[in-house]
């Protein structure tokens, strides 16, 4: 006997508003599709430039998402759970990269970490290491713009969690770190995933901060969005084609991911 599924019916106000919401995203995609040079697509997309950019984009966006996870989740936890002076200010500062035009963000990064930057100059003098114009520069720029999404999402989720389960774990002798790893994190897993997706997607699409902080060199720092930008000035068809690659990559990754760990297998 298989379990009978009862069809959930959606109340119409939610259905109407939600569909309108979906239209906001679907319409432009249709717009994009109508202007796509489908016949020349293969040729436009199979160039060196695009392949190089795609590789770089995948690598840097995944790295940036990973770093955002590593640093962002602890930061969110500190913001949500530990009272320290200036907490509110730190929390507000975390959301700044979202507000700052990315180009300005990139400039701020240069001011801080560039060859003449507040931190960058001493580091460069001492070690010769230079972030701008390198792959690591791309990653740093991506982390800067992408991590806030993860931090805000995770902090919101942490505030949703009632502390009693964590307290119960503490009475069992678990240190705060163990509680965090084995109780808190699993409890907010869906939100951490949501935040990770947001951060990854934002990193994949990042343009302004990257071009300003890391520059634009094919094979080294030219990610897909930078390639799109270059193409936009030359030939719209190529730009649209590269954008479709971007769309396809993110669609593929998101569709694959969700099956596994987004929906806990209970999905369509």
């Amino acid at each position, binding site marked *: 006997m298989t379990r009978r599924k009862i069809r959930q019916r959606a109340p119409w106000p939610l259905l109407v508003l939600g569909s309108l919401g979906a239209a906001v995203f679907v319409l432009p995609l249709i717009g994009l599709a109508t202007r796509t040079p489908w016949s020349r697509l293969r040729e436009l997309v199979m160039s060196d430039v695009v392949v190089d950019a795609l590789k770089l984009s995948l690598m840097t966006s995944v790295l940036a998402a990973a770093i955002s996870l590593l640093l962002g989740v602890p930061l969110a936890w500190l913001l949500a759970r530990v009272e320290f002076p200036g907490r509110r200010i730190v929390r507000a500062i975390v959301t700044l990269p979202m507000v700052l035009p990315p180009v300005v963000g990139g*400039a701020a990064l*240069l*001011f801080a970490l*560039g*060859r*003449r930057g507040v931190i960058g100059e001493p580091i460069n003098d001492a070690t010769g290491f230079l972030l*701008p*114009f390198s792959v690591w520069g791309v990653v740093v720029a991506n982390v800067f713009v992408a991590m806030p999404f993860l931090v805000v999402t995770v902090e919101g989720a942490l505030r949703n969690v009632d502390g009693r389960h964590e307290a119960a774990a503490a009475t069992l002798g678990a240190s705060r770190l163990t509680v965090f790893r084995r109780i808190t994190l699993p409890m907010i897993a869906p939100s951490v995933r949501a935040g990770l997706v947001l951060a990854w997607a934002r990193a994949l699409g990042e343009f302004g901060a990257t*071009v*300003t902080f890391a*520059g*634009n*060199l*094919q094979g080294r*720092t*030219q990610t897909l969005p930078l390639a799109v*930008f*270059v*193409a*936009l*000035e*030359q030939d*719209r068809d190529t730009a649209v084609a590269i954008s479709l690659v971007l769309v396809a990559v993110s669609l593929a990754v998101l569709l694959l991911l969700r099956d596994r760990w987004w929906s806990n297998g209970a999905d369509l």
Partner: protein
Amino acid sequence: TGRDSDETLLVMAAASLTDAFGEIGVAFEAANPDIEVRLNLAGSGALREQIVQGAPADVFASASAQTVQALVSAGLALSPTDFASNELRIAVPTGNPGGVVGIEDLANSELLIGLCGAQVPCGQFARQALEQAGIDASVDTNEGDVRALLGKIEAGELDAGIVYASDIAASDDVDEILLPPTFGVAITYPITILSESPNPDAAGAFVAFVLSVEGQAILHAYGFDPS
């Protein structure tokens, strides 16, 4: 500019013309009190896209002949007129920390070298110059526009880059190194009235004003040469 006007003129101008066209707009309004000028400033490519998509614009002043030509072929713009010209220079941070002497140094992989991207006019001209000099530049970044390139040189993040003379004139934080005249490439800025201009008369007046003595003087003040 909150006064009543009979007509509003929408001028699409390349971002590198921001300062000069800002002043030209004010001067034009003073001369034509019944016309209000609105500037729409963006990269030449983005402007072209907006025009193609039916922006209700009147005048298009571009940094690239190519962009305008594309619009003319599409029947969206009337035949253009060149209104300004420019020259290339090597810009280095004040004090020239990289010790750049001439165009040969751009091949030095020890230095951090930037150019404009090949998709924008300044990048195309720079590459022409390098080719003529037979130099294979060791490029670390292809910036999106000349201002971005200049900004990085000003900040000392790059040791050298090829930019327009007009940009160097506007900056206090760079030193310039002249290129031999043989490497000079002809750099011209076209302006055109758009075919679907809602105010073709006012558009004509604006173009005429840019080409007038007064307009040319303003352009010169911002480092542009007459065409």
